[in-house]
Structures are given as C-alpha cells and as structure tokens.
C-alpha cells in the first residue's frame, strides 16, 4: 500500500494535476450553487473537457474535484436560500436554513465547510484502507436487502419527524412514493398514471419537485410575512461571527467522527449514495441526541447541520469504492464517471489496482488535496457568499423565484415543467400551513423508483414474497422498519399512561 501511496503522491502532485483539482473545485462550487444543477449535470457538462485532457488520471482528478465542489456548492444554496439543488443536500437545509435565518449564516457555512472537509478526508482514509475488502461486502447486498434498507430509511425519516407527527410524515412519504410511480418505469416499459399527458410520460423531475417543496413555499412565506425576511436580513448584515465556539466544536466533533464512518459505509453500497447517507445520518444523530439538543434539531442545531454535511461527503468518497474496485457505479454520478473512464480507455474493475495503480492512487491522493483546496478556497469566501442574504427582499424574492423556475427549466427544456412546478409549489405551501413535513415527501419520491425496482427484482428472483423469509438480513431490516414506525406512538402512549397513573395517585 505504501508503494501505491508514493506512486499516487508523485502523480497527484504534478503541476497539471494540482491545477485540475483547484479548477475542478472552483467550477463545482460555483455551478453547484445554482439550484437545479447537481453534481450529475455538472460532471456531464465537464466530461468533454476532461476527455480532451487525454490523461485519465488528470481527467478523473478534475471530475472528482468538480464532484466535491458541487456537493459543497449545493450546501450553500440549501443553507442560504432553503433551495437544495442536489438531493444529497436536502438534509442540510433542515438545520442550515434555520441557522441562516437566525443570522448565523456565516457560522453555518463554516460548519458546513469544516464538516464536509472532515467527512471527505476521513472517507478518503477509509477508502485507502478498506477499498479492496469492501468490494466483497458490497456484493453480499442483493436487491432484497436494498429494498429492505430503503424501507428502513423511509420509516426512519417518518419516525424521527417528531411526536404526534409520525402519521403525517408517513402520509407524505407515501405521497412521494405515489408521485414517483408517475411516468414510464424502467422495469415495465409502460406509462403509468400519465392521465394521457405527454409531458408526464417521463415522470416528474426531481429538481422540479425539490424546488416546489422547499424553495417555492419559502419564497411565498417571505412574501406573505415581510417580518420573516426582515429579521434575517438585518442580522446577517453583520456576518462577524464566522467561527463556531469551542463548546459547539466539542458538540459536533463526535457527530463528525460517527457520520464520516457511517456515511462512508453507506456510500459504499451501490445505489445508496450521498442522499441516503445524509438522511440516515441526520436521523441517527437526532435520535441519539438527548433532551434539549434533540428538540433543537430542525431549528438550527449545529449537530443537525454537521451530520448530513459530513455524511454526504463521506458517502461521495465511499461511492468510489464500487466504481474503482468492481467497475459498478453506485450512483448516477459515478455512472457518468464510469462513462468518462471508458472513453479514456481505462476499465475500472478489480484489475485497476494491479494494472494501472498510478490512476487508482492518484485519485485517492487527489481526494485529500481536493478536500483541502475546498476548505482553503471556501473559508475566505464565506462572508461574501453569505452576503446573498443581505440583498433587499424586493430584489431577492424575484431572483429566488427566477432561479427556481430556471432550475426546473434547464433540466427538461420544457415550459410545461414550469406549470407543474407552480402547481406543486402551491400544494406544498398549503401543506406547510397545515404543519405537514415536506422532507419525507421528497425522500419518498427520490427513493420510490429504486424501491420499486429492487422490490420487483426480488419478487421476480424468488417468484413471490419468499425473499422476506429466505433472506434473514431482509427480514431483520423489515422488522426494524416496523419497530421504528411503531415505537414513537408506543412511547407516547406509555408516557400518557404514566401521567394518568400519577394523577390517579398510584
């Protein structure tokens, strides 16, 4: 391994490759800030540039830099505008946006940068150590386990939505799953629930739904209630407090440590990726936090911000494991990377490490450099990025609305998508008024297709529902999911019983 690291160091520290890392991170951060352009589209756009470099190591380094940069850039728009442009940063907005509204935008961005850095770096260390061994573990997960894992993820999100809210959160999750069935599924090749409309043939796009669920209602609320924006605006004019205090540092350190490891291992599983890692990370941290800290989640908790930020960066690193060791892309983004590699005449797979070790190790070393560059580039930029919030609302709101529309439009190049966006946005605003959580809806939608595909595949493999009993891991995970949903209401009932008991005097 040491020899490999040395090869990687010498390859990654060439002037060209260092430039690639810096350029990749910068491009990724700036384009990632625009809602609607996720890492997948940015990498797709950068592929021609990367291929024209001709050197596979440099190309992969550039694309990896873009990938990290885009994830970080996505977090900034989640934190500042509540407009997550990337599925992986949706969880970031849960606590990042409340922090920004409290006038702590600078601190939130700093925490996000530090957490991303730590997650990415620890992930890269784990990648170095575990890449060869993990490839075998990932193969143990079959479609039945993926199905069960996603069910656990969905019920965990609903279960952690809060007391008295579980049924509502479940309802939203199911609505998300239902929306995901619209359009032509990959497995069946027939349009479903399109109501005869051509525009629904390809389904509802993720970006449109994300914009409609988060950015649009937020903009509407800013319009409805001018005080809501005013308080945030006046506070964020003085972005003096960029640093987090020592206590806060101490609070988020264990979170970062746990989430880098957990996020990395979730990222290794093909199909799971940064999105699930960030949501699960958030849910886990929320569940193990105690009393007051738990109540703070969703209202600007530093832990709630650090957890998904760490987890999604660690998972991005983790998702390189199946790509580099098995040649199986675990996510859409790594699938595009795989395409780029093949175009450069490199075949990722078990032989990559033995045939072209310089590529394998150069990529890993460049991950360290990329994370460092991101931190160094972004920390000084934070005061300027956070200034976005100081723009007068009369200008800010039309621009938020415009970027929301743009995000939905450039993905599909279809004006009907904009009407769908407005319609869903109105629906989401009403949901918000009725105190329904919207995140479960979006998560249900993201996971819906994967959930159904894996369910159908296991049904076909086992000719029925037998896979539930025949695969112990699947059964275990499904039981866990049911427990997660039932536990909050059981706890609440016990608490009520106890309260009644006290009143009766026993």
């Amino acid at each position: 391994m040491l020899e490999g690291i040395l090869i990687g160091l010498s390859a990654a520290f060439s002037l060209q490759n260092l430039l690639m890392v810096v350029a990749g991170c910068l491009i990724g951060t700036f384009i990632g800030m625009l809602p609607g352009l996720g890492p997948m589209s940015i990498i797709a756009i950068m592929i021609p540039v990367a291929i024209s470099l001709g050197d596979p190591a440099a190309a992969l380094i550039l694309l990896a830099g873009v990938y990290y940069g885009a994830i970080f850039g996505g977090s900034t728009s989640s934190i500042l505008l509540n407009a997550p442009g990337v599925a992986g940063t949706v969880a970031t907005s849960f606590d990042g946006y409340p922090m920004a509204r409290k006038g702590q935008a600078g601190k939130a961005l700093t925490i996000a940068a530090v957490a991303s850095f730590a997650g990415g770096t620890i992930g890269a260390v784990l990648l170095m150590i575990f890449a060869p061994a993990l490839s075998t573990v990932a193969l143990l997960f079959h479609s039945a386990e993926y199905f069960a894992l996603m069910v656990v993820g969905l019920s965990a999100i609903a279960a952690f939505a809060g007391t008295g809210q579980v049924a509502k959160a479940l309802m939203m999750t199911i609505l998300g799953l239902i929306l995901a069935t619209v359009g032509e599924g990959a497995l069946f090749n027939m349009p479903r629930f399109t109501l005869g409309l051509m525009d629904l043939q390809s389904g509802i796009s993720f970006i449109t739904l994300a914009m409609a669920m988060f950015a649009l209602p937020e903009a509407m609320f800013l319009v409805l209630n001018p005080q809501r924006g005013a308080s945030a605006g006046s506070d964020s004019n003085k972005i003096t407090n960029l640093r987090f205090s020592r206590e806060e540092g101490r609070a988020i350190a264990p979170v970062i440590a746990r989430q880098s490891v957990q996020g990395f291992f979730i990222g290794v599983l093909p199909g799971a990726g940064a999105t699930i890692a960030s949501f699960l990370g958030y849910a886990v941290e929320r569940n193990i936090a105690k009393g007051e800290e738990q109540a703070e989640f969703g209202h600007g908790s530093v832990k709630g911000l650090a957890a998904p930020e760490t987890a999604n960066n660690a998972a991005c690193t983790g998702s390189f494991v199946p790509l580099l060791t098995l040649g199986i892309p675990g996510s859409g983004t790594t699938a595009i990377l795989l395409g780029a590699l093949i175009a450069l005449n490199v075949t990722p797979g078990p032989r990559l490490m033995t045939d072209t070790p310089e590529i394998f190790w150069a990529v890993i070393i460049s991950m360290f450099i990329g994370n460092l560059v991101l931190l160094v580039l972004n920390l000084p930029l934070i005061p300027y990025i956070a200034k976005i919030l100081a723009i007068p609302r009369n200008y800010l709101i039309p621009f938020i609305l415009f970027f929301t529309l743009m995000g939905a439009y450039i993905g599909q190049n279809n004006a009907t998508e904009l009407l769908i966006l407005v319609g869903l946005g109105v629906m989401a605003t009403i949901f918000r008024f009725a105190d329904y959580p919207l995140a479960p809806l979006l998560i249900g939608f993201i996971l819906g297709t994967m959930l159904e595909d894996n369910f159908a595949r296991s049904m076909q493999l086992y000719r029925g529902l037998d896979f539930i009993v025949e695969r112990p891991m699947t059964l275990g995970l499904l039981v866990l999911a049911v427990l997660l949903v039932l536990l909050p209401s059981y706890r609440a009932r016990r608490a009520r019983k106890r309260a009644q008991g006290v009143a009766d005097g026993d």
Partner: protein
Amino acid sequence: MALDRWIALIFVTFCCAYGYLAFFTMDQLLPPFMQRNPVWPSTFPKVLAVLGALTGLVVLLGLEKPEAGKGPSATDINLARLHEYKIGQALLLLGLMVLYALSLRAAGFLLATTVFLVAGSAILGERKWHVMLPVAMLATGCVWYLVQQVLGIYLRPLPYFMGT
C-alpha cells in the same frame, strides 16, 4: 375541522382514485406474457394505495395524539394569522410565474426574464425603476451567457419572430 384533517380527507380520496386506477384499469392492458410475472406494473401502486388510505385515515380520525402543550406551529408560519399576511402579493407573483412559463418560448428568454424580474420587484413594492431595470437586464444577460454559451444548454434568446 382543522386544515390538516381536510388535507387528510383529500388524500384519502386521492388514494381511492389512485387505487381504482391501479386495481381496475391497469391490468387489462397487460400483455399475456407479463401476466405470468409475479410482479405487475400495478403491484406497487396497489400496495401504495392501500397503505396511503390507511395512514390518511389515521390522520383524518386523529388516532395519533399530538404532543400536549406544543404550540400550533414550530415555525413562525401560522394559519391563524393568514389575514395579516400579504396574500395579494403572493397570488400576483404566482400569476406572474405562470405567465412567465407560458410566454418563455414565444417571447424569448431575454425579454421574458427581464420583464419577470422587473415586474416581480414592482409587485413587491419597489419603485426605483432606474435600479431595477439595469439589475434585471444585467442578471438576465449573465444567466443567459452562462447557461447557453458556457454550459451549452439552448435557450431561445429572442422573440419567435426574430429568428431562433
């Protein structure tokens, strides 16, 4: 009945309609060879329709008790204060978005976007036209340049009668 239970009622109705489509209309079109599969295109929607109706009923009937002593809303958005809010502005902005969606193709990106940004600020009460107009035009130009020239995603810049 509170708004959240009205929504639950609508959701249950929606699930029934969705379930009707899944249970009674989808399978007729299925080719015979696919009928031998253990899983049909309608299988997952059927499960969802049933689960959705059940959870909707739980909310509708109020089976899950909310936590006592908790305020009506954790966020500062509150339906009870709706009459204090600027609903007119919000509706106008929504209308403007729809108008933008409908006119984007015909009027071209540059014109539609500039008008959208200026009109949006105007609806919110901004009257400094000498600031609004240059800002909107500059932003429109920058975004158009970035999206079309740098990223290579086609946006028709000019109205339809002035070429593509």
